[in-house]
């Protein structure tokens, strides 16, 4: 029916005017949807990091850089290594209130087949581990065999496939869930395999870390505190009684990150609201100006037999179509930028970043779409009212 096609024809015959309004709607959608996704991704990353660390306290060597380097490994995936004497684990375990301890050994690979950059290799003790295996996405039935590894979610290596580390063929038997942290780019294996890798590196003349075998040193100890004990107190006791280590409450390590995240989220929200308000003002002004320009056109429609309601519907249909096109463009642009570039955002912000799942993302998209549609409808509502109530007789006379 021609009347139903009229809004679309109006939009198509005025391409520049339409494109400008679609652009505003797209910008608003991108800001609302992109802002929501980015904000949620940072929040997810932090929550995931907290859960993923799985320990109440992490102990690292006392040297000044160790704690910073651990944060870099966790948050940005920057490979690093630092060591302390292996015997410290037993002393830490003996501190009152410590329930579980699990030591990890950090090694940095040469460029592996899987990756264009160096990756973090983490040797862990399967017998005592309580922080890695709970996050296995694709699990294996037995313990890790010789030269078997578990890979982080961001690595391209699939379960069942192999990759070469220092020329040693290592088979991936498990893959961890995504955390949005640096742990997603790490490779996990047993200390036996770590020893094999070190030997291989020596044979190849790379000689990495030759004097610091997992037989002698560890990089960190993850601690679970017994129920009823104060975590801060246990950490303090470790620092007091065990020389050469720094015990850090996992939560306190995350506090800095949480603070930065809170600031960035606040900035994102402020920008999102600013764009929303600005776009709403621009749209209202644009529709208002158009209402003035199109007074005669609507007066003619009235003489033909359009009711006030039909005139209002005409304006609202046009604004709805503009918003729909803007929403589609905004969602596509956001999906093509925010999701694929999550890793880049993570590196730039130095914060854990874990994109929301499909259901949550759909929810954010629908919310943004609804907000843009409602904003568009409200922006054009006044113009629709003005045009539908205008004095047709006067307008037709004004034109001549």
């Amino acid at each position: 029916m021609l009347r139903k096609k009229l809004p679309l024809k109006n939009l198509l015959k005025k391409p520049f005017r339409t494109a400008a309004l679609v652009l505003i709607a797209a910008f608003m959608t991108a800001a609302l949807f992109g802002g929501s996704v980015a904000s949620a991704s940072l929040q997810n990353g932090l929550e995931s990091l907290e859960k993923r660390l799985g320990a109440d306290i992490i102990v690292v060597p006392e040297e000044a850089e160790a704690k910073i380097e651990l944060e870099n490994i966790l948050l940005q995936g920057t490979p690093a290594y630092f060591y302390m004497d292996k015997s410290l684990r037993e002393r830490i375990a003996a501190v009152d209130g410590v329930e579980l301890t699990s030591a990890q050994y950090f090694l940095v690979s040469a460029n592996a087949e899987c990756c264009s950059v160096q990756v973090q290799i983490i040797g862990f003790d399967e017998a005592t581990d309580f922080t890695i295996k709970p996050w296995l996405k694709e699990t294996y039935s037995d313990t890790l065999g010789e030269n078997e590894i578990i890979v982080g979610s961001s690595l391209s290596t699939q379960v069942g496939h192999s990759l070469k580390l220092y020329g040693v063929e290592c088979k991936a038997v498990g893959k961890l869930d995504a955390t949005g942290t640096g742990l997603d780019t790490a490779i996990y294996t047993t200390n036996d395999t770590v020893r094999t890798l070190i030997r291989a590196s020596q044979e190849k003349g790379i000689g990495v870390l030759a004097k610091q075998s997992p037989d002698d040193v560890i990089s960190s100890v993850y601690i679970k505190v017994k129920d009823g004990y104060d975590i801060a107190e246990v950490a303090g006791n470790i620092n007091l009684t065990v020389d050469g280590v720094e015990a850090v409450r996992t939560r306190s390590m995350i506090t800095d990150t949480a603070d930065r995240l809170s600031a960035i989220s606040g900035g994102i929200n402020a920008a999102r609201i600013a764009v929303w308000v600005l776009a709403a003002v621009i749209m209202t002004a644009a529709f208002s100006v158009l209402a003035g320009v199109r007074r005669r056109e609507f007066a003619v429609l009235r003489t033909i037999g359009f009711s006030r309601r039909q005139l209002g519907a005409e304006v609202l249909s046009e604004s709805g179509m503009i918003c729909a096109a803007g929403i589609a463009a905004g969602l596509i642009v956001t999906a093509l930028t925010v999701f694929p570039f999550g890793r880049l955002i993570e590196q730039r912000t130095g914060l854990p970043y874990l994109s929301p799942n499909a259901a949550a993302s759909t929810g954010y998209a629908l919310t943004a779409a609804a907000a843009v549609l409602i904003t568009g409808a409200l922006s054009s509502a006044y113009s629709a009212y003005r045009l539908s109530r205008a004095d047709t007789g006067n307008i037709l006379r004004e034109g001549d």
Partner: protein
Amino acid sequence: MLIRAENLRKSYTKKGRSGRTVSALRETDIELESGRLTVVFGRSGSGKTTLLNILSGLVRPTEGRVLFDGKDIFSLADGELSRFRSRNIGYIPQGQSALSVLTVEENVLLPASLIGDESAAEAERLLDIVGLTELRNAYPNELSGGELRRLAVARALINKPAVIFADEPTNDLDDENTRLVLDLLKRTAEGGKAVVVVTHEQSAAAYADVIYRMDGGVLTEGKGCNREIA
């Protein structure tokens, strides 16, 4: 269809600080019959367009009523009145009134879409009558002033209304186009419709069955020779 207006009055309150009330139409009665071309002459600002807009249901009178076969059109709600208008009233506005985003044929068909009866054959027949068949796919910006006015006539006729109102239909047209448009309106009246034309075009008198003169909001029926009255 018999159209009768009784005791029509229209006054406006002027915008601005004065808030002065202006009487655009003083107490007026008029009767329009099918098959007759009624011409209302008057100077600019005399109130003739106001009368036309009230008779066509576009503007609500301050007092009085307009009866179409005894039915007061201003007793209808806006939606009902609009439906009634699209079915029964054809309106030719002053000046250029084609929608620029529609082709000539689509412009003619637009009123038909309001009543759900888009007949391409009827549009074609009307375009043939007004001499725009060749231009059916053209856009209004490709048409001359006379062609646009003929397009407005075809659009007003598409729903086969009982009455046609034309506001200065020959304004700014050359003699040839003025004659063409008035011929069309005369033939429309002869086809059984009530046609009302408000104009200051003297030559319209020759086509009129009934002539009125509007002056300062007062309508008077002309008597005697048409040309003298005009």
